[in-house]
């Protein structure tokens, strides 16, 4: 499985073998390999544990949609769209992403000198229709993902309690948190390297 999966950052940043950015990444082989292994650990894990593969793809699609990265959204949502059983999720996720748009980071600091930097923004809740379609556990995960993506400084033990109440386990919450945070990293590496590649191509032209 590992050998057949292309390097996802290269794929989504459009980094071609032999290009300037390929040579840059070749100078950081461990970063390249471990970023890929992180992806595989989350989306092709050795053990599924408490988070199903469908839940993983759905949450990653939602995170990519919140970052307004259409190509990365397609990458994560396509396995759902390709499956008869899960196709319904695509439209539900698109509708939720549409209602969840914001510009971050925002949120509250603990009361004190940083309170002047507090910034308000959307506190997203899954729509009623979305909730009914997704069920308790996945709906709670999307709300938590939105919190982590846009207002991580608002995170609280109460938010974790809401996940437990919705059927998440402690192990599952660790995997969920890693997944949302990893995709936030991966999106930024792809966005940054894509820009750098474009700038290198202009310089060479």
């Amino acid at each position, binding site marked *: 499985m590992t050998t057949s999966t292309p390097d996802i950052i290269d794929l989504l940043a459009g980094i071609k073998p032999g290009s*300037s*950015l390929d040579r*840059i*990444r070749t*100078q*950081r082989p*461990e*970063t390249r390999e*471990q*970023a890929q292994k*992180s992806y*595989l*650990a989350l989306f092709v*894990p050795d*053990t599924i544990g408490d988070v199903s593969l469908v839940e993983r793809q759905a949450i990653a699609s939602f995170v990519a949609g*919140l*970052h307004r*990265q259409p190509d990365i959204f397609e990458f994560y949502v396509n396995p759902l769209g390709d499956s008869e059983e899960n196709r319904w999720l695509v439209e539900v996720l698109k509708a939720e992403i549409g209602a969840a748009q*914001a*510009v*971050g*980071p925002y*949120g509250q*600091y*603990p*009361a*004190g*000198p*940083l309170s002047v*930097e507090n910034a308000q923004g959307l506190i997203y809740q899954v729509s009623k229709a979305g909730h009914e379609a997704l069920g308790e556990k996945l709906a709670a995960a999307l709300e938590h993902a939105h*919190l*982590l*993506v*846009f207002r*991580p*400084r608002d995170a*609280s*033990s109460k938010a*974790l309690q809401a996940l437990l109440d919705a059927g998440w386990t*402690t*192990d599952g*919450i*660790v*995997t969920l*948190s*890693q997944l949302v*945070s*990893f995709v*936030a990293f*991966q999106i*930024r*590496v792809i*966005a*940054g*390297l894509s*820009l*750098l590649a*474009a*700038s*290198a191509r202009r310089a060479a032209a």
Partner: protein
Amino acid sequence: MTDHIITPAIENRPVAFTQAEIGWTPWLKPLAEDDLTEAHLAGLVEASRAKSPYFRLLVRDPQVLEARTKTDKDIFYNTRTGLPRAERELAATAASRSNGCIFCASVHSRFAAHHSKRGDDVQKLLDEGVEVDLGDRWNAIIAASVALTATPPTLGDEHIERLSAAGLDELEIADVIHGAAFFNWANRLMLSLGEPTPTVQ
């Protein structure tokens, strides 16, 4: 047994950015040191990390933790070529300052100050925020890190040009991108799985 959260009673909780050594305490139960298996130890990468409640919580998913830890180490410690360690730590500090991770910013501002010998400038970044003026090169690194930290990211050609004008080559710019991007992973874990505790006297 039903899982439950931990609500620590913390007096004098940190409420400002600082270079001081502060602590961190989890909101979910870490594994006990005695319960760690071979697979968990592989996930921790370094045996010393078994002392940390943060890593003993993350090791509940050992496969992800192992890859995450090795990604982290290479992005920050592999400095034979490319951007100096100080400026990778500056990117980490700027991302953490922007997201609002007081704990992450404390650790990485100390590293940035130590490796750059510019502790006062690092403190200005913590005190005044990401708009601070620390000279062309640091300003360019901070601006790019903050733009990449925004959701959606606002990093643009102008940021790349500014880094290039400040003397960074492509590999060094890629190092800035990775340093800031990685802290968009780390900040979210640190902020959402527990909270900072005061300096241990």
